[in-house]
C-alpha cells in the first residue's frame, strides 16, 4: 500500500467521516495541512476565519443547527488558546465540535518553542476528551475516536493536537470503520433501566400536578416527537429551559414558556406548585431554577432523565433518576403506559396554569418615543412567522428573544446558555448558515456583544453568506445596567459606552449592507427591508436603555418570588 502524508490522512479521514466544511486559519505548524488542502477543496469547504474564536463559534453554530459535529482547524499557541472560549461555550451547552490544532514537533514538546502552548493541558477541563497524536499512523484513529466521543453520549468538544512531525511524516493510511471504534472506558448508556422506567410510570400515573422541565437534551437527542406524544397522552404542561426552546412547539396549548430567572410567571408558579417535575435533558442550572436549590419545587418529586449520570443529583436530589437518551427513554415510558389513563384533576391543574398566564402574561407597552427591544423582537417574530433560525447573543436581548420569539421547531433557537459567551451569536449564525443554507438565519445581538466578534463580517461577505444581523443598540451593557438598577442603587459603573462605532458604516466598511431604525415607526420597514435584502445585512436598531427584563427571580430567591413588571409599564 502506498504511503501518504499525515496531512493527507487528515483530509482523507475527514472525508471518511462525512465532513464537508472546516472553519480554520493557517499558521506555522499546520502549513503542510494547508498545502495539501488545495487537493481537497472540491470536496471540503474551508472557511477562512479572521480569528480562531470565530472559528470555534462557527463550528458550534454548525453543530447546533445540524446536530452533526462542527470542525475547527488552526495552528498552535495563540491560535489554540483563542479557541478556548469557544470550546468552553460548546461544552457547557453540550455541542459536539472537534478542534484540530497544530503543535510543535514531538521532540520539542515542552521546550517553550515558538508558538508552543500546552493545548492538552489547557483544554483538559473544557473538553470531553483530547488527544495528543504522536505517530503519523495513529492520526486517523485518533480523529475517528474524537468524532465518536464528541457526537455520542452527551455531545461535547474533543480536541486533537497534531505535532508537525506527525503531519509531515508518511505512513500507510488505515482508517477504522465506525463499528471498529471500541473504547474500553467509554460506553454511554442510552437505554433507561427498566425498573426505573416502571417507577417513573407509577409516579406519572399518581401525579395530579405534573410539569415537564424540558432541556437542551431533548433537542440533541431528537426527542421532539416523543415528547409531544408523551405530553399529549398524559396532558402535562411543558416549561422549557433556555436551551430547550424549540424542543417543544411554542404554539402547543400545553407549552407554558421558559422557566427560571427570566421565565414566565406561569412556568415558575407551575413548577413551584407541582407535585411531580419530569426533567428531560436538563441539568437544574442555577439560572433555570433560580439558584435556590433547597426551595425548588418544594412539593414535588422529581424524575430526572439525562444521558450524563454526573448531571443527576448534582444540584438537586431526585427521587427517580433515569440515565439514558431522552428519545429512547421517552419511548420506553410511552410503551409502558397503560392504554387507559385516568386524568382526573388534570383539567383543574391546567386551568390554574392558564389563570396564572392570563394574570401575568409576558408583555410590553411600546410608546411613541424610543423603540423597545421587546417590541422589536415581537415584530421580528411576526415578520418571519417563526420560520427562521434565530441566533441570539448574551444579555437582555437574549432573554427577550427567549420570551417573545415563539420557537416551533428544534435547532431554530441557538444561544450560549451555560457559559453566557458574549460574541457568540454572529459567528455561530454563520456556522448555522453553512449547516442549513436554505433557512433564513438571523443573528440577534446587542451593541456590546456584537463588538466582541464583528471581525467575521469580512468572512461572511467573502463567502457571500445570506445572513441577517440585528444589533440592538442601547449604548450599554444592558443586563449589567439592569442589575445596577435593581441591586446597586443605580450606580452605573462601567456599563455605558461613550464611543460606539457607527454600525451602518461599519457594515459598509466590510462590504455589507447597513440599515438603521431609530423611531418606533421605522422599525418594521427597516426589518422588512433588511430581511428581504440578499447578502449580509446589518440592521442597527436604536433601543431604549431603560427597558428591563421581567419577571426576574433575584439571585438566590425562590422561584415563586419574582420581581414583576411595574404596573405603569405593563
Amino acid at each position, binding site marked *: 500500500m502506498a504511503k501518504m502524508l499525515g496531512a493527507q490522512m487528515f483530509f482523507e479521514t475527514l472525508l471518511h467521516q462525512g465532513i464537508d466544511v472546516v472553519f480554520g486559519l493557517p499558521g506555522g505548524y499546520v502549513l503542510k495541512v494547508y498545502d495539501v488542502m488545495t487537493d481537497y477543496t472540491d470536496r471540503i469547504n474551508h472557511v477562512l476565519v479572521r480569528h480562531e474564536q470565530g472559528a470555534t463559534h462557527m463550528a458550534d453554530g454548525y453543530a447546533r443547527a445540524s446536530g452533526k459535529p462542527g470542525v475547527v482547524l488552526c495552528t498552535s499557541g495563540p491560535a489554540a488558546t483563542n479557541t478556548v472560549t469557544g470550546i468552553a461555550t460548546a461544552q457547557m451547552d453540550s455541542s459536539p465540535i472537534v478542534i484540530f490544532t497544530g503543535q510543535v514537533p514531538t521532540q520539542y514538546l515542552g521546550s517553550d518553542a515558538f508558538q508552543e502552548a500546552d493545548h*492538552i*493541558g489547557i483544554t*483538559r*477541563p473544557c473538553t*470531553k*476528551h483530547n488527544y*495528543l497524536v504522536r505517530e503519523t499512523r495513529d492520526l486517523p484513529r485518533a480523529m475517528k475516536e474524537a468524532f465518536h*466521543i464528541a457526537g455520542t453520549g452527551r455531545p461535547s468538544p474533543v480536541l486533537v493536537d497534531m505535532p508537525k512531525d506527525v503531519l509531515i511524516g508518511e505512513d500507510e493510511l488505515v482508517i477504522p470503520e465506525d463499528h471498529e471504534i471500541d*473504547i*474500553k*472506558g*467509554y460506553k454511554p448508556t442510552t437505554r433507561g433501566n427498566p425498573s426505573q422506567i416502571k417507577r417513573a410510570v407509577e409516579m406519572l400515573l399518581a401525579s395530579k400536578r405534573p410539569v415537564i422541565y424540558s432541556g437542551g437534551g431533548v433537542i440533541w437527542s431528537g426527542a421532539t416527537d416523543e415528547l409531544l406524544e408523551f405530553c399529549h397522552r398524559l396532558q402535562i404542561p411543558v416549561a422549557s429551559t433556555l436551551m430547550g426552546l424549540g424542543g417543544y412547539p411554542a404554539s402547543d396549548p400545553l407549552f407554558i414558556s421558559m422557566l427560571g430567572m427570566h421565565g414566565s410567571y406561569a412556568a415558575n408558579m407551575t413548577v413551584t406548585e407541582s407535585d411531580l417535575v419530569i426533567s428531560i435533558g436538563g441539568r437544574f442550572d442555577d439560572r433555570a431554577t433560580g439558584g435556590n436549590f433547597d426551595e425548588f419545587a418544594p412539593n414535588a418529586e422529581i424524575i430526572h432523565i439525562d444521558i*450524563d*449520570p*454526573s448531571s*443527576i*443529583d*448534582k444540584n438537586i*436530589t431526585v427521587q427517580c433518576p433515569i440515565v439514558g437518551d431522552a428519545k429512547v427513554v421517552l419511548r420506553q415510558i410511552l410503551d409502558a403506559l397503560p392504554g387507559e389513563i385516568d386524568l382526573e384533576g388534570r383539567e383543574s391543574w391546567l386551568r390554574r396554569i392558564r389563570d396564572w398566564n392570563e394574570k401575568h402574561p409576558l408583555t410590553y407597552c411600546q410608546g411613541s418615543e424610543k423603540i423597545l427591544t421587546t417590541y422589536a423582537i415581537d415584530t421580528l417574530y411576526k415578520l418571519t412567522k417563526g420560520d427562521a433560525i434565530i441566533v441570539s447573543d448574551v444579555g437582555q436581548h437574549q432573554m427577550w428573544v427567549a420570551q417573545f420569539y415563539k420557537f416551533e421547531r428544534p435547532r431554530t433557537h441557538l444561544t450560549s446558555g451555560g457559559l453566557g459567551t458574549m460574541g457568540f451569536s454572529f459567528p455561530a449564525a454563520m456556522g448555522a448558515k453553512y449547516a442549513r443554507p436554505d433557512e433564513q438565519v438571523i443573528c440577534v445581538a446587542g451593541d456590546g456583544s456584537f463588538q466582541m466578534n464583528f471581525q467575521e463580517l469580512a468572512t461572511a461577505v467573502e463567502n457571500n453568506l445570506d445572513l441577517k444581523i440585528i444589533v440592538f443598540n442601547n449604548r450599554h451593557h444592558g443586563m449589567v445596567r439592569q442589575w445596577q438598577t435593581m441591586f446597586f442603587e443605580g450606580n452605573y459603573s462601567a456599563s455605558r459606552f461613550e464611543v460606539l462605532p457607527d454600525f451602518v458604516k461599519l457594515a459598509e466598511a466590510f462590504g455589507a449592507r447597513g440599515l438603521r431604525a431609530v423611531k418606533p415607526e421605522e422599525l418594521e420597514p427597516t426589518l422588512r427591508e433588511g430581511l428581504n435584502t440578499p447578502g449580509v445585512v446589518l440592521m442597527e436598531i436604536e433601543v431604549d436603555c431603560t427597558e428591563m427584563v421581567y419577571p426576574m427571580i433575584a439571585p438566590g430567591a425562590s422561584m415563586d418570588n419574582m420581581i414583576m413588571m411595574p404596573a405603569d409599564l405593563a
Partner: protein
Amino acid sequence: MKPRHTISITVDNEAGVLSRIAGLFSARDFNIESLNVAETQEPGTSRITLVTTGDEAIIQQIIKRFNNMVNVIKVVDMTELDRVEREMVLIKVDAKADSKPEILRIADIFRAKVVDVSPRSYTFEVTGDEQKIQAFVELQRPFGIKEIARTGTVAMSRASKKSK
C-alpha cells in the same frame, strides 16, 4: 466530621490521566489526602488509589465524573466495601546513643524493619493501615524524625466482598 473515602480507579496508563483525575478535585476546591499510582497485572492499565475527605454529595458527583472520563475503565468507592487497606512508610529517626534501645524496641513492637543505619540515625520501613502508621510516627517523634516518605494508602476489597 465529613466521611473519608478511599476510591480505587482503574485507568489507561497514559500521559495526562493523573492530571485529569487531579483536575476534578482542584476544580471543586477539594483536597486529595493521599494518592498512589502504579501498573496493574494488565499491561497498559494502572490503578490509582485515592483518599479524600469531603461532602458526600460532591464526592459522589466526582466519582460519576471519573466514570465519564474516556481513560477511566473502572471506579470503585472502596469505602462501601469490606476491604484491606495498607500503607508503607520510610522514616529516618535521629538515633542518639542513649535512645537507641528504646527506638528499636518500639520498632520491634510495630514490626518495622531497619533498612538503613548510620552512627546517628535509623531508617525504618513499616507497613500497616493508616492508624498503625500514624501511631508509629507519633511514638518516634520525640526522638527526632529527620525525614518521612509515605506511599499513600492502597486498598483491595476482601475476596468475600461483603458490604459493610
